[in-house]
């Protein structure tokens, strides 16, 4: 046994503290959704989701949710078809610019969203004039905000796979570059692509500032709207969104384990 490792008791205490840090607020929120203002227990807040009378109240949520899902799809498309091929290209053909590319990709994490909006506002004026003000156009901004998360996930997989040798082997066997990328490289960095995509979805579903300041209706802005009419609904939808993210993380882990079974 490693003598420098903490004892089992210490590990349990640390684990319990971390779990409490996350679970107490979530548990409190969950309890809150089962309470009436007078403190009595009720399922009414949850059943109201299916109540036709609540339809008008919930409409902004469904609109925001739909917009967020469209944004998530477009953002993931940007990650998979713009970012990932660029990263493969940089790693295989232009390794000298890798450090610069990494710096640029990680930069958005250090820029507050409010500052980002100041720069994005005039750009979105031009976008609005050329292709309209559809909510999906927000994906261009989200493509930037998810860069650090998607980049790190994909780069970790790229570092683990010997892309150079794999691509050269495939080329020597007669494969053109599209085949190399789609049939050889992508399957071998699949875990990174999946993790990058799911983290991007999580970021898009949780983003508020940019959407609000650029006057777009997304899931998080709809929570603000609805909370003015019913304080319980945002709590319920927050729990559902967290559950969704948790399921997504489980999928990442499961797929990752599946890939590890087929790989050394």
């Amino acid at each position, binding site marked *: 046994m490693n003598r420098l490792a903490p004892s089992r008791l210490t590990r349990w205490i640390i684990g319990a503290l971390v779990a409490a840090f996350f679970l107490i607020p979530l548990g409190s929120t969950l309890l809150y959704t089962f309470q009436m203002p007078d403190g009595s227990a009720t399922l009414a807040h949850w059943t109201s989701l299916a109540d036709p009378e609540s339809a008008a109240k919930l409409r902004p949520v469904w609109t925001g949710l739909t917009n967020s899902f469209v944004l998530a799809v477009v953002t993931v498309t940007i990650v998979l078809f713009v970012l990932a091929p660029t990263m493969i290209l940089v790693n295989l053909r232009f390794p000298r610019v890798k450090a610069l590319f990494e710096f640029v990709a990680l930069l958005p994490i250090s820029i507050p969203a409010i500052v980002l909006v100041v720069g994005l506002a005039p750009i979105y004026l031009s976008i609005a004039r050329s292709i309209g003000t559809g909510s999906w156009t927000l994906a261009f901004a989200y493509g930037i905000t998810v860069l650090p998360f998607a980049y790190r996930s994909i780069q970790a997989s790229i570092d683990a796979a010997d892309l150079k040798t*794999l691509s*050269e082997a495939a*080329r*020597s*066997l*007669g494969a053109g570059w599209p085949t190399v990328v789609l049939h050889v490289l992508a399957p071998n960095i699949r875990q990174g692509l999946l993790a990058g995509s799911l983290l991007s979805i999580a970021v898009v579903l949780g983003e508020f500032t940019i959407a609000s300041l650029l006057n777009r209706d997304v899931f998080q802005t709809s929570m603000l709207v609805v909370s003015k009419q019913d304080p319980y609904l945002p709590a319920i939808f927050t729990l559902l969104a967290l559950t969704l993210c948790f399921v997504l993380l489980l999928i990442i882990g499961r797929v990752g384990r599946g890939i590890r079974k*087929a790989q050394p």
Partner: protein
Amino acid sequence: MTLHPLPPTADNSLLADAGEGTRVEFRGITKSYGSTRVLHGVDLDIAPGEFVSLLGPSGCGKTTALRVLAGLEANDGGAVMLGGRDVSRVPTNKRDIGMVFQSYSLFPHLSVVENTAFGLRRRGVRRTEAHKRAVDSLALVGLDHLADRFPHQLSGGQQQRVALARALVTEPRVLLLDEPLSALDAKVRVQLRDEIRRIQLRLGITTLFVTHDQEEALAVSDRIAVMNAGRIDQVDSPENLYLRPATAHVASFVGLSSLVRGVADGSFVSVWGTRIPLHSVAHGTVDVHLRPENLRLVDEGEGTMHALVEESTFLGSMRRTLVRTESGELVRVQHDARIRPAYGERVCLAIDPQPVAVREGA
């Protein structure tokens, strides 16, 4: 070169289709990385069906030369000819080559048979036909029973065998081997080395083998091109390289040799009172490359040199002993295994007057 391919068998489509191989020519190939020139006008002709090794120390440009032939690096000058056609600007995937890499280059997400069929599928061969031919190719390397496994379920030697089967299944015009044995343990290295040669002879495929291991090159090659600092020093048969090295670098790199001081007078050099013929004319004080088998342990007499034993190594059928001469030179001598010199023992050496190579300006 005379090849004696085995007769085709019905169960091996590869063998049945074995051709005569393709001529490969390097014509004045130059290549630089930035301001560093790594290939200085390399010229090399490889006959159809010939097995040629590029041998040299690390950084001499042998892998770069192979990669230029594969199209993985672009040559700055000169021409690469495949079957008489300049392919210098033809992309790798259109050159019709098979290549085995130093690192295990199997695709981890594909099974052994899928890996092997990859090149066939890229050439539009139907799935069932590609599968059948892939299994045939795996049979050639004795791994058809592992067709459904994944690369990580194979040993290093098995992975390189699959890589070889994958490279051969498309019946390429030339087979390129980029130090394919260097990651394997000693026993597997020898087995796979011999297997590569056996298969190459059966298929008659032109093969270029890059290695820094002289023993590997000497064992399997029809000819060896010894490279040094981006140039080819000598291209010759293994026997000639060993017995008649053209340069001091070849003499020192191919086989074991010891350097001793001598005085040359044209076609001969005098060492320890013995006149030895030279491969090339030299004058004055020179360093002479003596092979261990050119030296003998003898009784004291004329033309002998006294020496003290530094170490002695048993090599199975013989013994090799390192001695320090009275003039301070360290020399290896090969002799009967039954003679067991002890450390510090005083011995006498004599030189067999076989032709030797020298380094001038000593």
